[in-house]
């Protein structure tokens, strides 16, 4: 505890870097995943290709992506961009199959009814199909956010900042308090964002509430 009180500025600084590095990929990943999910839901072949690709990308260990990234995009090994892109890839690999499933699952009657009401294809996608897939989308986003928050710490191994720095430094100094602080902050952050996303999902898709409570009861 003394260690924490003596190092608040460093902790806050690492915390801020950590959050930025974890959350930017979620936002970029979401923006990329929606059109890709739409493509996958629309064409059978695209679906097969994209989902196979997603499985393979998700299999690649994060430390591997971090190390390979400079060779692929010509960045420096210490560039935080490597981490952001690596985590974005994971987010996309996680979200695209989920969005594709959710869009395919929109009942034909619903799309037919929307078309009959005069929705143009684009309007129908944003006004009907996408909102209906919000529960799946938030579920995917929650997994992506929690794992990103935890994965950013790996960046410390290749010299990218964040709370992982407290772990490597604590390890070198055999400082239990420092390592525990980093772990606790990361778990708490993960829980906060998980809960926030869950609440947002509930607020955006109120019709799903009854079903979820019904399912767990």
């Amino acid at each position, binding site marked *: 505890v003394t260690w924490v009180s003596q190092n608040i500025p460093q902790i806050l600084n690492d915390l801020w870097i950590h959050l930025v590095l974890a959350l930017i990929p979620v936002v970029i990943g979401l923006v990329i995943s929606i059109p890709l999910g739409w493509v996958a839901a629309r064409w059978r072949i695209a679906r097969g290709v994209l989902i196979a690709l997603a*499985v*393979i990308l*998700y*299999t*690649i*260990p*994060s*430390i*591997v992506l971090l*190390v*390979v990234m*400079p*060779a692929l995009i010509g960045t420096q*090994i210490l560039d935080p961009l490597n981490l952001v892109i690596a985590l974005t890839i994971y987010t996309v690999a996680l979200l695209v199959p*989920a969005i594709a*499933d*959710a869009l*395919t*699952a929109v*009942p034909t009657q619903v799309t037919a009814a929307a078309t009959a009401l005069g929705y143009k294809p684009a309007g129908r996608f944003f006004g009907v199909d996408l909102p*209906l*897939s919000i*529960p*799946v989308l938030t*579920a*995917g986003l*929650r*997994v992506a956010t*929690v*794992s990103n*928050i*935890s994965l950013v*710490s*790996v960046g*410390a*191994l290749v010299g990218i900042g964040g*709370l*992982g720095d407290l*772990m*490597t430094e*604590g*390890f070198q100094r*055999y*400082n*239990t308090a420092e*390592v*525990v602080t*980093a*772990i606790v902050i*990361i*778990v708490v952050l*993960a*829980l906060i964002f*998980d809960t926030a996303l*869950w609440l947002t999902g509930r607020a955006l898709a109120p019709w*799903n509430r009854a*079903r*979820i409570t019904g*399912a*767990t009861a």
Partner: protein
Amino acid sequence: VSIIDWFTNPININGNPGLQPSLWELLWQHVWYSLVAVAIGAVIAVPIGAWIGHSGKGGLAVAGIANALRGLPELGLLTLFVILLNSIGALPVFPALIILAIPPLLANTYAGVANVDKAVVDASRGVGMRERGVLLGVELPIAMPLIFGGLRTALLQVIATTAIAAYVGAGSLGYYIFSGLSVRNYTEMLAGAILIAALALIVLGLMTVVQRFVVSPGLRPATRRRRVALTRPPAANTAAGVETAGGNP
């Protein structure tokens, strides 16, 4: 070209006594750590998940625990165990990896058993099966595809993470990444990355083959048909349930 040179250099494959372990030794360490961790994780998580799924009590706790464990940063756990156990080497690697293996196994086993059709469970009781028999003979086999999915996720995540064992001096294929990083030998890091990714993909392929044999053949066409019929309307629910595997409160 340089990466090919690395792989064709006999020192990198056979090692250099006292300076660099052989590739086979590191590969073996990597596989050994991963398999043992997932096996112990399965021994802990599958019975608990199965029992909770069977009794129907504590589902919320499973979701919460699985989610909280998922948020734990591996690097932090590993360094913490090194300090707590006061030992460099393989010993602290196992608890860190076991904790990583538990959430997908626990959540998927629970979801698999809890989602078995209640009519099937009642029918098994109706023909005189005891609770033990219902769980072991009916629910677990039916849940096998999901349990296997959990096993695959656990194994892949553990293989990916085992690389950080090298950070605390416990070897594994991650050795090349950290050894290369310390002397800015980019080729060596890349070689390590390629080896780990290849191992992960080979294991993914093997698991897909093994799954065909483990999952009861009677389930295959039936689940496929049922999936088409059932997932359509409540897709949001099933997809969320499997994907977050208990992340749903």
